[in-house]
């Protein structure tokens, strides 16, 4: 992995919302083919970090974002997605009054060379994905159905399937398994493995260490907006990790 430029690299990224400082001086790099687990207490700043990578939030003055060895000056969600970064947001980012197919392709609608939307294709792709990848069996998953009446897990399925469709180079999953059944959780974890197998990268956020540990290559621990730990899986056992997470929560420091 050394020698290759990171897919995404944050240098000294801070983020303040008015009086609240959510991130301070975060350095983070994600290498090609690497799955990184992001751990941290509620409010540690994980989701904020994700939104900075996606260009939804702008980092405070002095913070830099690098994509494949190049410093990014004009960053936006549209650009991040064009470059191959997809995110399953914690809040799912769905437009619930709209049909499934519009949600599936929101922001990246399929169009022909004259700019006309290919609605038929979006519908058929949406329906194929929903049944092939998520294996949904409910009556609610027809592509013309609105998301509003779907169950919580099904809504999440739409958000997950959406990220899967675009073959992103970097997939960010912000607590994707919350509220999912055992079998859907397993599918999601399998999805992360398939990302790894195809040599792409992922950032995986989950409060369940037993989900994170087996899935990832490296773990980054965030506490009150700062990176306080960074472990290769070979360097730490799951018990040691749990121990140090407790220590962070108690003392705010990862070291003894």
């Amino acid at each position, binding site marked *: 992995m050394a020698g290759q430029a990171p897919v995404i690299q944050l240098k000294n990224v801070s983020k303040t919302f008015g009086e609240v400082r959510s991130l301070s001086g975060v350095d983070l790099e994600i290498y090609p083919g690497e799955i990184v687990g992001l751990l941290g207490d509620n409010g540690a700043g994980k989701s904020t970090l994700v939104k900075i990578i996606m260009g939804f939030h702008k980092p405070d003055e002095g913070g830099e974002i690098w994509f494949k060895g190049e410093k990014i000056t004009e960053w936006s969600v*549209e650009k991040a997605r064009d470059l191959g970064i997809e995110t399953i947001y914690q*809040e799912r*980012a769905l437009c619930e009054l709209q049909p499934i197919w519009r949600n599936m392709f929101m922001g990246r609608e399929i169009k022909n060379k004259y700019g006309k939307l290919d609605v038929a294709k979006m519908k058929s792709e949406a329906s194929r994905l929903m049944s092939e990848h998520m294996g949904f*069996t409910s009556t609610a998953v027809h592509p*013309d159905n*609105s998301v*509003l009446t779907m169950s919580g897990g099904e809504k999440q399925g739409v958000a997950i399937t959406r990220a899967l469709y675009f073959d992103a180079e970097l997939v960010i999953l912000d607590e994707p398994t919350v509220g999912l059944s055992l079998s859907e959780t397993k599918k999601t974890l399998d999805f992360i493995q398939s990302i790894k197998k195809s040599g792409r990268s992922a950032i995986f956020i989950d409060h369940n260490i037993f989900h994170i540990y087996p899935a990832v290559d490296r773990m980054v621990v965030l506490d009150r907006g700062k990176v306080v730990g960074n472990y290769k899986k070979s360097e730490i056992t799951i018990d040691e990790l749990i121990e140090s997470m407790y220590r962070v929560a108690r003392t705010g420091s990862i070291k003894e």
Partner: protein
Amino acid sequence: MAKSEEVKAKDNAARPPSFWRRFGMQFGIWGVGIGIWLIFVFTASEAFTSKDIYLAFASSTPIFALMAIPLTLIVITGEIDLSFPSVMALATASFTKIYSGTGNIWLGLAMALFVGTMCGYFNGWLVTYFAIPSLVITIGTGFLFRGIELAWMNGSGVGLTDKELASVANVLVGRSFFGIANQFWWTVLATIVLWFTLNRTKFGAHVFLTGDNKISAQLMGVNVNKVKRRTFAIMGFFAALAGLVASFEVSYFWPTLGDGLLMNSIASVFLGGTSVFGGIGTVTGTFVGAFIIGAINAGIVASGINAFYTQVFFGLVIIISVIMQAVISKRIKR
């Protein structure tokens, strides 16, 4: 292929939304339209069985329908525009000034459409840049545009009877095909163009997303502010067109042009099934809604009902259609 899909659908039991859920609103609108029409056919059968009244509709309704149709897009994004009657007047005033100043009709027309578009864009800019509710800021710009126009025209109107204007007038408001006013065909064209824009372009897709959930749309890379600015600009363009149509229809530019059209246009949008909450709406619904409003206008007079009741009727139509939307959206949410 079709067969295997059928089988698959059965396996997954993935059913499309029920017919009523998908088209219920559209049927509701058509139902209201036909119902009102029947009432008039019975209460004012003489007028409503002759074709004159329909020809009258076709010439008068387009003036506000041309603005109700683009207004639909703004309402879908969750905003509103109350300034378009003033934009109509200011844009048409620009036409009369440029035309009388230079004698160039085309420059005048282009200027009118440009001024209209810019006024709309200005609205959109204020709404998005300062994050001000459009309901409030467009009251302000409405007064502003009207004030500029009245000051510029010094409060007086302009006749549009020059021979040189005849050909433009003929294209805009002449009569063709069984004596139907051209503005009706312009309205049909506007409906088709904006239907395409809304349903078959990326911009249109983003109009729905913006009004449905702004944050979600932004998280997925939709530039919601740009979308809103564009819908306001489109509104301004059509307000200018409607202003030209209305003025050429009567061969006179009244400085008060636009007065009384605000409610007609807004009522058409809501009656047409566009959601007051944003995220849902159709331009075809608005088109039908506009002609229902037009029929109410004409029908009340023709049935010999005191014209003051028109407002009562409008009020009821708006209130009932908005209540219907609230009830339907509650039903869907269960």
